């Protein structure tokens, strides 16, 4: 309610703003609004999706130039030209986004910067774009009964467009698509393993950024009615970047605040552009070092600081007991092979991490994979889950050859995994971590955002209900809104398992789930894993805690030096001479020795 009032107040203020401004000031405000739209686009691709994009200014340029060329050369009306210009920008966005499929971070930064430079190079030289002089005399936009050549009226056009694109951006960020993008930003590997189509998401992010760039470009062409190369140079790109960073790249509102405040500062220092540049450059450095979340993050930091000073700490959240799943009544036929690994070899340059490994896992089984450190257990998981392509051999999952498929395809086919060193999405809450896993929608259906926004909202509500159930089942309800990093290690482990199961897999791969857990937590883990299996899922577990493996698994595969040296029931494996030798040969730590008696639950 309070938020609604603030929005309404801002809306009214924005509506009456022109009445207090002279003709120069309204021009400045119009330019600021355009920069704000650009900044939202950059915030979406960089802050939300984590794709370093230094060609936002080129998107802006394509939008503006395309409008200019289409209206002056082809004699089109402004609106038709504008729509075509936005389409052209989207094409450009898809082209500039393609490198993101191969490279990330610094590389992506430099490639997009290079392509932005290539764009300025082209417009300064091509006769179509008027060379260094640019294009003047762009047809003014017309609306029946409205005089858009007046900057006061044009302001309202921009204001409406701005409100719409900001609203749309916030809508994306707060629902499934934005959550997936943020998950990808935090950990692309884990997002892929949960079924997020990483390549598609990256392209979507670039496409969104280009739409914002295009819209801003069209508005700019309609406002200034003149385009020239220097409006789209690298200095302006860095100014835009500074706006997003200073405002707070992870918050769209922050991006807008950053754009407005920097643009105002630049206007104040209009006679001393280098001083302005020096100032915002220094602020960028200070922000990344001292306040990485930018202006948008300050209120929260301030509140946290106050809480800390006052010492007010709410009642500590508590981990509730796990509530077992309803056992699935289906009879398990052991003949049903869920996963078949056939002669998989994985070579890392000189090192053979896996050497002709074969194993078969039946539906409903709990399979243990043990072996000394460096025996290739995690490599095997990485091959099965698609993170590594095997050098030779095949992985057959649910009867289909899945060798070398992308992790997200395997995840969508019904496989989920946890990671040895925990890969939770750090900047998402516990609940959002689960929501990413629960969300089984294809990214392709993102068209609904534009055409059926209400269905997106409905679906998001349904997802939240399922997330609440999962939280309840795993006893995590009280941690729902906390950041995973703030939680104790044992709880983080549980969140990761809950997240993997929330993806509704047929096959669950657990990589050392008991590492770092205390005795009681290991006991709870055994209970959780058994219940997960009883609910109709198959589990493969890599573990060093022999007590746990011996009591939990029906079948055990022992790896050493990349080869399968034994497999069978716990009792069979434990007496196998090759196993004893591998363990004693590897270390003298007798704790790791398989214990023959299968009764003990934990060490």
């Amino acid at each position, binding site marked *: 309610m309070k938020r609604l009032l603030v929005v309404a107040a801002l809306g009214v203020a924005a509506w009456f703003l022109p009445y207090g401004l002279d003709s120069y000031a309204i021009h400045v405000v119009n330019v600021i609004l355009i920069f704000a739209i650009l900044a939202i686009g950059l915030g979406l691709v960089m802050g939300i999706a984590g794709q370093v994009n230094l060609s936002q200014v080129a998107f802006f340029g394509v939008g503006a130039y395309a409008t200019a060329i289409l209206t002056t050369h082809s004699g089109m009306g402004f609106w038709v030209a504008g729509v075509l210009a936005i389409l052209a920008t989207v094409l450009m966005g898809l082209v500039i986004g393609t490198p993101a499929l*191969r*490279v990330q971070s610094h590389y992506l*930064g430099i490639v997009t910067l*290079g*392509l932005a*430079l290539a764009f300025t190079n082209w417009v300064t030289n091509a006769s179509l774009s008027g060379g260094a002089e640019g294009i003047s005399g762009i047809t003014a936009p017309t609306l029946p009964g409205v005089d858009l050549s007046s900057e006061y009226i044009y302001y309202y056009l921009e204001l409406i467009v701005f409100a719409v694109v900001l609203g749309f951006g916030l809508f994306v960020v707060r629902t499934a698509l934005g959550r997936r993008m943020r998950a990808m930003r935090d950990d692309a590997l884990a997002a892929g393993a949960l079924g997020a189509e990483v390549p598609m998401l990256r392209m979507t992010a670039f496409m969104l950024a280009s739409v914002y760039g295009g819209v801003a470009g069209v508005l700019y062409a309609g406002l200034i009615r003149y385009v020239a190369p220097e409006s789209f140079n690298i200095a302006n790109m860095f100014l835009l970047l500074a706006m997003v960073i200073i405002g707070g790249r992870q918050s769209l509102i922050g991006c807008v605040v950053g754009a407005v405040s920097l643009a105002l500062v630049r206007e104040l220092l209009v006679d001393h552009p280098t001083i302005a540049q020096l100032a915002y*450059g220094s602020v*960028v450095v200070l922000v*990344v*070092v001292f306040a990485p979340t930018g202006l948008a993050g300050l209120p929260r930091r301030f509140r946290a600081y106050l809480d800390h000073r006052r010492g007010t700490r709410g009642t500590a959240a508590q981990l509730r007991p796990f509530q077992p799943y309803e056992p699935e009544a289906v009879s398990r036929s052991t003949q049903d092979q869920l996963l078949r690994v056939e002669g998989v070899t994985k070579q890392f340059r000189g090192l053979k991490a896996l050497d002709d490994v074969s194993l078969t896992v039946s539906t409903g089984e709990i399979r243990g994979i043990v072996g000394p450190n460096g025996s290739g257990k995690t490599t095997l998981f990485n091959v099965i889950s698609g993170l590594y392509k095997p050098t030779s051999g095949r992985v057959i999952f649910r009867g289909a050859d899945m060798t070398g498929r992308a992790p997200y395809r395997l995840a969508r086919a019904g496989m989920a995994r946890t990671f040895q060193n925990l890969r939770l999405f750090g900047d998402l809450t516990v609940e959002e971590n689960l929501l990413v896993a629960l969300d089984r929608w294809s990214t392709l259906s993102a068209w609904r955002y534009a055409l059926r926004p209400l269905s997106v909202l409905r679906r998001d509500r349904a997802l939240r209900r399922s997330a609440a159930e999962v939280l309840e089942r795993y006893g995590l309800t009280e941690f729902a809104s906390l950041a995973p990093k703030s939680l104790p290690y044992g709880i983080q482990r549980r969140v990761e398992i809950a997240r993997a199961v929330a993806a509704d897999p047929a096959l669950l791969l657990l990589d050392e789930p008991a590492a770092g857990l205390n005795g009681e937590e290991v006991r709870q883990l055994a209970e959780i894993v058994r219940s997960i299996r009883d609910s109709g899922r198959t589990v493969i577990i890599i573990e060093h805690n022999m007590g746990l493996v011996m009591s939990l698994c029906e079948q055990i595969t022992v790896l050493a030096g990349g080869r399968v040296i034994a497999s069978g029931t716990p009792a069979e494996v434990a007496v196998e001479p090759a196993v004893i030798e591998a363990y004693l040969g590897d270390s003298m730590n007798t704790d790791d020795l398989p214990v023959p008696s299968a009764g003990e639950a934990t060490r």
Partner: protein
Amino acid sequence: MQVFLQTIVGGVSLGAVYALVALGFSLVYRTMGLVNFAHGNVVTVGAYLASTFYLSTKLPFALAMIIAIVVTGAIGLVIERVLRPLENKDFDLMLIGTIGFGIVLDALIIMIWGATGRAVPSPVPTAPIDIFGLRIRTYDLVVLAIAALATVLLVLFLSRTKRGTAMQAVAMDHEAATAVGIHVGRSNATAFMIGAGLAALAGGLVGPLLYVSPALGGALGIKGFAAAILGGFGSIPGAILGGLAIGILDSFTAGHFQGYSELVTFLVFTVIIMVRPTGIFGERTVNRA
């Protein structure tokens, strides 16, 4: 054939400069996994410093260059020290931090030296040498010799001195390096200092070849980066080879595409990075799992 060879010769001296810029990038990258986006601006600072001392105070060219290297080395130290809290934590933020430094340096350059550029006369005024009909400027040979010398010194430093070996260790595994008592921060600072020094060397050398202006470093920086990637990021022989390759590519595109040479260079570079992100000698994958 004559034209072809002449084009190659024309590209080699600029290529050597790109190689020096690439070496600076690579050295910092292999030590701390960071691409210094302010590197290009440091090149500009170096170019201006060297040319200022050479032109206004009439110092010998070599001495002017050394002063420029020392001053930019100090700038490198400052950048590293300010961004140190982010090291090995958030690479994207560090990257943006270096862009911030780039913006600051760019503003400082314009404040101190103005927005217009200057031409620097060649310190070796001899007429071009004629070898088998190819005309080679004497200054090109000077550039090549200095670049080669700098590379040899860098390799010796990295392989023969304790500080250099420590830097290699940090490059391989910063945690293990800390565990055996190497001061990672200091090692990174050294890398940044040497990287900035190399940038100044490149800037000083390129002064007489190109026009010194505030925009100089931007173009050199991005081409040096392209060279580093082409050769395989972090690899020293790769940086040299990549630099020469980009220099020659540049010389060809300038001949064939005139005004569009930059466009063509960047497009070729993008395609290369997409086809082979690890470059010619690169070992590390780009997306570390």
